[in-house]
């Protein structure tokens, strides 16, 4: 119990706050200080982040939710300069995704000294058993936003150009086939939605990898067509109608069509991460895919119901990796998709078990360009390349801090959970004792701080009192 000082005595009104007894005056003083600090912080944020990005925010407002907005604000500076810091105001973002509840455990004295940053490799191989596996210098497969309002074609072409200079690959994505997209991209991934009429043999031959995305039929003819508020990825999934493996004959047909069309390249399947993920994996595995892409619930926030479907990307990857390893299928590459916006996100997902990630739809420059008529393909490509350049650098910085030289060395031991919830869900150690939640810890720290402040004020008041008496006598 906190011992009351002189200051609180005359008022005699006590308040219970956490495990501390506080007088009304103390509470008012604390309130005033808190208000001041909040006002100052807001002012600082406004000048540092909000005002410079006002235009960006304005165009983002109608399209993305509050979390995305905060992310936009703090990622925006990367577009113009390749800063190497990570998420400067991350602490103000209330856990954007489950991944934010995970942090890296840096190498200190143990396990080993950090390697030279230049020597760190970000390369990865997808579909190692294919005759022509996909070798990437950056484990990010670029994909354009699905619901572009501006020119989705420009976005696709810009992403293709970015993928070539970044050493990654571009996913053809939905919409019409674009010859220029293929021509720009060093590595082009043909994505085909189940339900679409099959791609031409020639198109398949142009691809470096092919992916069947379950299960888009024409949205006009799907049972989900009237559910306007359903997220796109769920509509696609429900369009598939029947559970995979139980009569969805067109999936194996499409896979074998792709294989016949181009027997050299990796062929895989993209699935929605559901609570029965393992059953889906078991079904997909029958058709011997070279890779599986798992889309988590953070993908495509295109409706207010988005977050209500499926499981988060991080959990999906953890579970999918566990399942794949348990079934001795580690030759099947695992690709994470959904809500990935930073170098830290990529490295965390790789540590959780992914071999590569889909990235693009959530990137602020990719989202915002839709509304910025003035941004042409060239400008978009340049902004995107800068972003990827900075992201690759940041990934190297993270690996260096973990004492690793290669992405292949990543595993879950480099991660720890900032919350017990994340620890439980992802099977990684928690940073704090089980009973205390994050909010409780912060509140306790705040109260401690105030208590220190109050006692120092009391000391000063005590010091001032005898001095006043002395001077009267002088």
């Amino acid at each position, binding site marked *: 119990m906190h011992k009351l000082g002189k200051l609180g005595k005359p008022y005699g009104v006590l308040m219970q706050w956490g495990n501390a007894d506080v007088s009304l005056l103390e509470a008012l003083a604390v309130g005033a200080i808190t208000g001041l600090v909040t006002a100052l912080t807001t002012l600082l944020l406004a000048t540092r982040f909000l005002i410079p990005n006002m235009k960006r925010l304005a165009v983002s407002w109608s399209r993305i939710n509050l979390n995305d907005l905060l992310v936009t604000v703090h990622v925006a500076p990367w577009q113009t300069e*390749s800063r190497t810091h990570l998420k400067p105001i991350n602490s103000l973002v209330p856990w954007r995704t489950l991944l934010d509840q995970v942090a890296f455990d840096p190498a200190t004295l143990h396990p080993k000294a950090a390697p030279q940053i*230049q*020597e760190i490799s970000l390369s990865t191989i997808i579909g190692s058993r294919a005759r022509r596996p996909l070798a990437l*210098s950056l484990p990010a497969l670029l994909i354009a936003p699905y619901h572009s309002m501006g020119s989705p074609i420009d976005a696709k072409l810009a992403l293709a*150009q970015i993928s*070539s*200079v*970044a*050493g990654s690959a571009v996913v053809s994505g939905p919409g019409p*086939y674009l*010859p*220029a997209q*293929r*021509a*720009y991209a*060093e590595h082009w991934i043909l994505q085909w939605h189940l339900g679409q009429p099959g791609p*031409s043999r*020639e*198109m398949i*031959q*142009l691809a470096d990898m092919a992916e069947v995305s379950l299960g888009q039929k024409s949205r006009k003819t799907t049972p989900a067509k009237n559910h306007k508020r359903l997220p796109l990825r769920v509509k696609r999934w429900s369009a598939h109608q029947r559970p995979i493996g139980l009569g969805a004959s067109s999936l194996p047909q499409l896979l074998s069509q792709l294989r016949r069309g181009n027997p050299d390249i990796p062929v895989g399947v993209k699935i929605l991460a559901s609570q029965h993920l393992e059953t889906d994996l078991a079904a997909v595995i029958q058709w011997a895919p070279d890779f599986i892409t798992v889309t988590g619930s953070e993908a495509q926030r295109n409706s207010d119901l988005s977050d209500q479907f499926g499981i988060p990307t991080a959990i999906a990857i953890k579970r999918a990796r566990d399942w794949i390893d348990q079934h001795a299928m580690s030759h099947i590459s695992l690709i994470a998709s959904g809500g990935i916006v930073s170098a830290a996100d990529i490295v965390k997902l790789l540590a959780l078990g992914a071999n590569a990630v889909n990235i693009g739809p959530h990137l602020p420059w990719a989202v915002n360009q839709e509304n910025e008529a003035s941004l042409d393909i*060239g*400008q978009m*490509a*340049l902004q995107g*390349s*800068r972003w990827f350049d900075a992201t690759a650098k940041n990934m190297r910085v993270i690996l260096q801090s973990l004492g690793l030289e290669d992405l292949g060395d990543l595993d879950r031991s480099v991660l720890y959970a900032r919350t017990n919830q994340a620890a439980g869900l992802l099977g990684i150690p928690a940073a704090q004792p089980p009973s205390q939640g994050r909010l409780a810890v912060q509140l306790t720290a705040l109260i401690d701080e105030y208590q220190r402040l109050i006692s120092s004020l009391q000391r000063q008041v005590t010091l001032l009192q005898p001095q006043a008496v002395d001077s009267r006598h002088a």
Partner: protein
Amino acid sequence: MKTHAVVLGARFGGLAITSWLRRLYPAEELDITVVDRWQDAVYRPGLVHAMDQPGLNVAKKVTMPLSSHWKKLRITPIQDIIVQIDPDQQKVYTATLPPISYDVLFMATGTEPGWDRIAGLSPRRGGVCEAYQARHTAWQRQSWSQGHFVFAAGPIIGSPQWEPKISVGCECPLLESAFLFERWLVKQQLRTKTQISVMTAGSSLAENSSPRVRQQLTRLMAQRNITVYTNVQFERVTDHDIFIKGERVPYDRSVWTAPMKGPSWLTNTKLDDGYGWIPTNNYMNHVRYPNIYAVGDGTSHPWPKMGHSAMVQSRVAVHHWLAKQKHRKLPAPFHPYLVWMLETGDSHSLFSITNMFYGGTTDILYHGLWPAWIKRAFQRSYVWSHGSLPIMP
């Protein structure tokens, strides 16, 4: 019945072919279809200014939107990737569209960058050969502060039958890039902090020019303190080292012209020489198919792989076809010669016309201001006219 000419490729060669065809044949007499994977054409010689000008400007200045041009010339454009040609059925196949039938076929499909020919090489190592690469290279150059900058030209994977032998395809832009970068560094007061190297698979600098041109170039390189490696056999490239036979060269940044090879899709047709190159006679007529012509970089010859050659060959090809059709006197065949306007920075260019490498005696060389002015004027009018210059070479 109207004749149908199909032109494959719409850059130096393809644009010159369409221009000549329309000059010689009215739309009532000849239907022309042009197929290319791009919607716009790029005047690539201008891309070397990625080394001394802002990238976005450079790319914009050299991009030629073609749709109104095609409309004006009454030409049907098709944007798709060509995957197959059946010369017996006289059909061109693209990735997604129905086959295109032709009466006469003009091929100007150039070469393919052989990034995969050197381990670790890819477009991300830097380059100026496409607009998006040049833009990116320019942006990277702007943040350059110090270190070793390498300009590297990969080999040409030609046919063993070529005589005289050439070991590199397109070195000109690389040398220009190095010179322009050097001058830019001087202006930025970064020259003393930068080591510049030029590495070429060529047996010497500008191997298909003349001894005088080579000497002049070597002298210029030495004056500018640029280290030159010739006859380079590239083995492997990593983020920090270029491994050439017997040597590891550490570097910080690079600009490459990729190894040059014949397009791989051509090897599935009956048209190539077995190595992806299209064999023609000196009238640019295919050696086996009289209604097929090929011009430019993709032909199976050790001739200069230059825009100028592609334009001259286009004139020869179209006039040859016209002469055959209308039973006229055949035009003069193509004789290879090199025309260079190599920018050396400070608004100077090295101008040379020579055919000595190909057994001739012409050897003109001049280094100064006016070749640079001519080059600039040529670029402006080329881009303005979409490659259909009032006076064609």
